[in-house]
Structures are given as C-alpha cells and as structure tokens.
C-alpha cells in the first residue's frame, strides 16, 4: 500500500478546498438558512408537530442529508473530472499507485469536505431551532457513511462524465428529486399508501430515515434496514469503481 500517495492526493485535494474555504462553506450555510427561514419559520409555524417534533427541527436531518449528498457528489466528481479535463491525470496513471489508493485519496478528501459542511449546517441549524441529538454516535456514523458512499458515487460520475454538462446532470436529474422525494421535508407516513410503497424504492428514504432516527429516536423504516441500504449502496459503488479501474473505462486506452 502506497500510503504516502494516498496522503499526497488527500492533502492536495484538501488544499484545493481550503483555497476556497469561504465559498465552500458559505453557500451551503446560506442555502440552509434560507430553508430554515422559508420552511422552518414561514411555513413551519403553520404546520403541526410531526411525530412529536416541531417542523423546524424535523427538517434538520433532511436538510443536512440534502446538502451532504449534493456536496459529496459535486466535490468527488469534480475532483477526479478536473485532472481528466486539464490532462494531469497522466501523473496518476504513471505513478506507482493502484486504484484503491487513488480512490482512497480522492474519495477520502471529498468525504471529509462534505462531512465538514454537514457539521457546519448542524451548528447553523442550532441558531434557528432547538435540537438534541439522541444518538450522537449513530448520527455521526450515518453522516460519515453517507459522505463516503456519495463521494464514491460522485467519483464514478466524475470518471464517466465527458463534459461539464454531464458532470451536472446526474446530481440535478437524479439526486435532487430522490432527496426531495425521500422524506427530507416530510415523513413518509404522511403520504397516501400507494406513494408510501413507491417511496420504499427510493434508496434515499432509508438514509434520511436512519439519520432522523439518530436525532429523534423515530424512523420511517427500521434502523437496521437503513444501515443495510447504505452498506449495499456503498458496496455497489465500490464494485463499479473497481470495474472502472480494472477496465480503464474512460481513463485509460
């Protein structure tokens, strides 16, 4: 294992993040604040408590997940797409590193960034609503797993994308709808029965549900199922990444 290479990639990527630290943190904080103003205060004040939790607090886990998932994907996909775009990928390919080391470096950095952003949002939300995290360890666990798996997913998109449009299209067309329909702002149990069944095919439901459980101790689906779903998603992403490097798909001719 070329640990120094992993570290080099990780540090290099984190430096890129630090160069634009304000931009990187500011935009998620602003958008989260807007969500709180609109959903939490303006609309939320007219909504009853959901499962004993005030609406403002109820949307916190969903909001964090929404931002973390999109940030993980955009960071990781850009991180590997950029070297492809400007040609510096030659260096990775000609270095004595294997696919796992490259993935650990890039995905590790993207996951760290999105984790930081997630924690910043959590802190920001405390300025608006009172929330207690009932299971802090589980909360952190879900957050880290989500950061990792969606960074892996972003990495795949970054390898697959051949232009900037493709880089944007998956987050826009797939992730945002899945997150919005995944119970970020409502409980699945509030839906008519037919739509509830449909929702269970949305993998994001399991992530948000598990994450919300770590805050409030209640969930749409069982915690075990949530863990299983995130493990399966991570597994599939890992398999795809392995196949990409095995075949050299879109990075090596």
């Amino acid at each position, binding site marked *: 294992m070329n640990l*120094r290479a992993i570290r080099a990639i990780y540090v290099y990527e984190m430096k890129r993040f630090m160069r634009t630290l304000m931009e990187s943190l500011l935009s998620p904080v602003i958008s989260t604040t807007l969500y709180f103003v609109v959903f939490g205060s303006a609309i939320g004040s007219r909504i009853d408590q959901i499962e004993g939790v005030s609406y403002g607090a109820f949307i916190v886990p969903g909001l964090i997940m929404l931002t973390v998932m999109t940030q993980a994907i955009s960071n990781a996909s850009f991180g590997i797409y950029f070297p492809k775009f400007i040609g510096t990928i030659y*260096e990775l390919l000609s270095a004595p590193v294997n696919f796992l080391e490259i993935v650990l470096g890039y995905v590790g950095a993207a996951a760290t960034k999105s984790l930081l952003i997630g924690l910043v949002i959590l802190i920001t939300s405390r300025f608006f609503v009172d929330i207690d995290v009932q299971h802090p360890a589980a909360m952190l666990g879900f957050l880290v797993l989500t950061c990792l798996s969606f960074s892996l997913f972003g990495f795949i998109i970054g390898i697959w994308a051949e232009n900037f449009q493709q880089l944007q299209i998956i987050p826009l067309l797939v992730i945002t709808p899945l997150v919005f329909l995944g119970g970020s702002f409502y409980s699945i149990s509030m839906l008519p029965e037919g739509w509830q069944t449909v929702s269970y095919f949305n993998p994001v439901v399991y992530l948000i549900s598990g994450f919300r459980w770590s805050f409030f101790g209640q969930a749409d689906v069982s915690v075990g199922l949530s863990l299983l779903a995130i493990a399966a998603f991570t597994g599939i992403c890992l398999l795809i990444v392995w196949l990409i490097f095995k075949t050299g798909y879109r990075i090596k001719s």
Partner: protein
Amino acid sequence: MASIVEVEGLQKTYDGGFEALRGVSLGIEEGEILALLGPNGAGKTTLISALCGITTPTGGTARVGGHDIVNDYRKARAMIGLVPQEVALEPFEKVINTVRFSRGLFGKPRDDALIERLLRQLSLWDKRDSRTRELSGGMKRRVLIAKALVHEPKVLFLDEPTAGVDVELRRDMWQVVEGLKAQGVTIILTTHYIEEAEAIADRVAVINRGEILLVEDKTDLMRRMGRKTLRIDLSAPISAVPEGLARYDLELSPEGDALSYHYDTRGQDGTGITRLLQALAAEGLTLRDVHTTQSSLEEIFVGLVKEDVA
C-alpha cells in the same frame, strides 16, 4: 552495457483496429540519451505511454530496471519520470506544491532540500510560490520536468520537450538534458526536430507506422548513411560539363560556375576525389574553392521513412 529498458515485441492495437505499435523491440542502455525519431502518428507517444502505464499494451512485454511494466508496475514506474507532450498543470496550484505532490504520489518521503535543489537547477526557485497559470510556456515545461524528476527516477521520458518552444528555450532545454545525463539519468526523448536528435542524442531510433526502422549510434548512423558532397567552385563559368568528366556524374550549377560531386566514404574503391581533381586539371579547369557537406540526420530520416512507405 546493461539495458535499463527492455522492450520486446510490444504491440498496441486500439479498439477501432488501429495498430499504433506493431511489435516494437528496443533496448535502452543505462545513462544514454536516446532520441526516438518519427513523423506525427508514428507511435512515439504510444510507445512512451505504454511504458509509463498510461495505455495498456495489447501484446509483448517491457521491463524497466528488470521489472515488468504490468506485473511489477510499482517497481517499474518508481524508476520512471515522464514529461508529457501537452503541458498539463493544475492552474491554481503553486509550483512548489505541485512538485511536492508528485513526490508524494510516488511514495517518497517529503524532502524540501531536494526540491529546492531541483527547482534551483531548473531556474524555478524564484517562481516557487507562483501559481502555475502565471508562468510562461517555457517555465511550465520546466515545472513538468521538475515534477517528473522529483521522485529521483533512473529513466526520464521526454515527449516532445521542445515542441512549440522558441530557439533560445530549446537550447536551454538541451542544457538541462545534458545536465541530467551527467547525473546518470537515462533519457528517452521523442522529437520530430531532427536538429534536436542531432544535437543531443547518443543514439537514434527511427520509428514509423508503429515499427522501429533502425536503432543506431548517431555518429555511426550519420557516417554510414551520410552521403557527402564535394562542391567545386570554378574560376570561370562553363556552359557544359566537359566530356572527359562524364564518368564522374557531376552536376553543374545553373550559373555554370560550380560543380557538385556526390561520393560515399564507405565506397570500395575510395571516394574518387583524387582522380576527379586530376581529371579537372587535365581539362584545364581552374578551381576557386572546394568544400564538402555531409547530409544531415534530417535527410537520412526522410530517406528512411520514404523507403518504408515505398
């Protein structure tokens, strides 16, 4: 001398069926500068890319320092530095950071003293905190060289190091290459500037359409293939080559004041110069000046590639 790079029957066929390398075999000796010469699309970059791990060969084998480039890629690649043809650098990163990154990527511990030495050697030390996009084209290429050398490779591949670089910088680059050779680095450079190969290479390999046409010591090659021309300037112009000189196959210049005689230093019965000069005297021609020229590597190269196409 032992070969540090051994290539045997290396093939690369792209998915579309295009054969970029058709069984290339080549031995590169430790400490030499080998110029890989060939027209555009000959397979120069493909060969380098295959050896460095950027493309996967479809046949044959290659070893660097005895390590197979596929099965033992870590050890093989650790010995190689690559300077790509296209300038590719992250625009917003500082010079020193991007060089430091390259060393880490190759698994070497951080060594600031070495980096300082290298950047000074390449006249980049003053620019160490500049972002790479602020550098001139020549400076960017030096950064690429620094990145390629920072993990202390034994073999350096320079893919068209002076493409699009002005004359002064080109000479500058040659000096850098000479300096590296003095440090014992084996250098393989691709070029289509024959002048470049002629100026700095020890050996020349000519590649065309995915095949190596020849590998030879540069001076031997030029001596062997070099046709020489003797140009004789006459004191007074003549209207035609005198009949008595017909057997020498002379060319008369359009102005009629010079004769050209082509000869071969490898010829069995000498160059024929002595006989020619005697014959000239016998014809009553007086000479104003005599000089010889040797065909350049460029002419040799064009001749070889043409022969290959025919």
